[in-house]
């Protein structure tokens, strides 16, 4: 059953490029003009906590696909078990447990519709490129780590152990997508707890699951609008804040800083005007008092 659904989704992902418009991703949100629209070709993933059994096959597949080292941690460091995202792990499975309630949760880059890392990055090393994937270009990276300060999900990681460090984060296996493959984590998942597809189709699928089993889930698709929306979407049977998701509004994470920056520096008019005004005031002062240096200024 799961397989057929997945096959159908894959088919949609390939064929749906023209069929599914941008607006389908957020029906009934015509009034939300502030919401940024995901790119028309946006792809993503849908993760369902009720299907994940925590086998971590995706963790190992991710390491293999992205040439990452094994990251054995824990008591005897025998098993590959990265406990959090790091320069060695672009994708991890975490476990939340409280009383008799428990849930696994897959953590990787959310591929925001309006990413804070890209808004932060001085030279655009982080940028939304093809399929809306937030990609990293080391040639434009200075290593300032502002992306780490900016990301509301704590995703980008820095190679602290290296003297020639890079940033590390999930790029949705774009090197595999280029070869017609899907991301390593979605391909390997034995329960299809995480599936790959066009964002619009994944939203449709998530809504279908919510409608079919309303009691099974928290009635929310995380990432539909949170922080302006993400291309990786989540369904959960425990409240999202308990499995590590920040309570974001619909406002894109970078909008406050950006609106100030753009507001003040729009067209670079304000700085030029201020510069001219400062010069004019000083010229007037010089006429009134002394030389350019103001040295013979008003000695009172």
């Amino acid at each position, binding site marked *: 059953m799961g397989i057929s659904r997945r096959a159908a989704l894959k088919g949609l992902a390939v064929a749906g490029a023209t069929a599914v418009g941008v607006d389908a991703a957020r029906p009934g949100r015509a009034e939300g003009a502030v919401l940024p629209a995901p790119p028309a070709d946006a792809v993503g993933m849908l993760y369902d906590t009720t299907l994940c059994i925590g086998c971590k096959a995706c963790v190992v597949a991710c390491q293999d696909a992205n040439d990452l080292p094994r990251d054995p941690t824990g008591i005897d460091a025998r098993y590959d078990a990265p406990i*959090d995202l*790091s320069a060695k792990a672009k994708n991890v499975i975490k476990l939340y447990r409280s009383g008799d309630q428990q849930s696994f949760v897959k953590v990787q880059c959310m591929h925001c519709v309006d990413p*804070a890392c*890209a*808004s*932060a*990055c*001085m*030279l655009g090393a982080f940028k939304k490129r093809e399929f809306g994937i937030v990609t990293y270009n080391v040639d*434009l*990276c*200075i*290593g*300032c*780590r*502002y992306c*780490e*300060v*900016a990301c*509301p999900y*704590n995703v980008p990681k*820095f*190679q*602290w*152990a*290296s*003297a020639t*460090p*890079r940033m590390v984060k999930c790029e949705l296996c774009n090197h595999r997508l280029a070869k017609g493959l899907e991301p390593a984590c979605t391909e390997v998942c034995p329960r299809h707890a995480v599936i790959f597809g066009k964002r619009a189709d994944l939203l449709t699928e998530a809504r279908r699951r919510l409608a079919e089993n309303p009691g099974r889930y928290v009635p929310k698709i995380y990432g539909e609008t949170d922080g302006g929306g993400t291309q990786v979407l989540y369904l959960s049977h425990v409240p999202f804040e308990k499995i590590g998701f920040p*309570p*974001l509004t619909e406002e894109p*994470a970078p909008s*406050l*800083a*950006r609106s*100030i*920056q*753009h507001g*003040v*520096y729009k067209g670079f008019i304000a*700085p030029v005007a*201020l*510069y001219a005004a*400062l*010069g004019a*005031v*000083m*010229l007037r*002062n010089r006429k009134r008092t*002394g*030389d*350019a*240096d*103001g*040295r*013979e*200024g*008003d*000695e*009172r």
Partner: protein
Amino acid sequence: MNGHAVAVGGRIFTRPVRVFAALAGLGVLLVLWRLVVGLGAATAMNDGYPWGLWIAFDVVTGTALACGGYAVAILVYILNKGRYHPLVRPALLTSAVGYTVAGLSVGLDVGRWWTIWHVPAFFWHWNLSSALLEVALCIMAYIVVLWIELSPALLEKWQTSSNARLRRWSLALLPVLKRSMIWIIALGLLLPTMHQSSLGTVMLLSGWRLHPLWRTPLLPLLFLISCASMGYAVVVAESAFSSVAFKRKPDMKMLAGLATPMIWTLYAIVGLRVADVVWRGQVGLLLAGDIRSLMAWVELALFLAPAIMLASPASRRDLGSLVRASMVMLFAGALFRFDTYLVAFSPGANWSYFPSVTEILITAGLVAGEVVAYVIVVKMFPIIAGQPATAERTV
């Protein structure tokens, strides 16, 4: 009143200078070590706290401590208070040295330091949404502008140099500089206005991880006012230092006059801060009783205290109370910036940061290097106004 700057003179490498130079030398060695081993081995920074002491203190606080040149220039050139002119050169020197050191700090903090020239060079890649890009470009430009603003002091000395080429260059450059100085000074006012406010915008991008008491759209304005506030306080502190170290009699009338802009900036910061918290309905957070509400109260108290200390005209004319108030002001501004970049930033309970010994020693070395550079320049070049140094021993 003697408004003319003269070189302090005297022996340069006195014992205190040698001690500071040794500390700076240790810092240089540790910097080299950090460049070889990488940030992970040398610092306590981590993926939760990607910015540590070097950004929060050396850059964000250090550049504000180096805003003396900015603060005095507003007074002298914009408000046309020419009587403060003797303060310009010492203030410019601390600014030039301070910003240069802050720039070096950025260079050793960024992971891929050998690519830092990409930031100004790759202009077609500039991300104009990035407040940090603006800060970086402005600070780089301002370092250059500050040294140009200060260069007449160097050229005045060199125009009587025994080196013929140096003498010729100085004589040729000085008039050019004098003619264009207004537009250079205007740039020296514009650039700090831009990047000091943007240092506030930078942290707004951290969103929910910045505590709501600091996460306000007024943050850029508060950063701007606080840098001017710290600038005036630095000028007072530095005059007091010169009076002790170089046996200069401080011009009390002039310093007392600085109390007025100092008090204004303090009231502006406290007023804006309180109004903002009330306006945004965050008073509850001030009363939460946790570490961050406590820090907010300490900040407010430290900003308010110097204004009260300087309330009476008598206290403004007293060097001791002026210096004490200035010290509290510097501490208040530094804490506000430190809080915004470190204390109020919370990536989650499982992350922690306390600077490593290497980080602290490098910061100490950089500060010591600033002191050495300042002392060397004032001894060799006409920076400080007043009588030339006597045969008395000076620092």
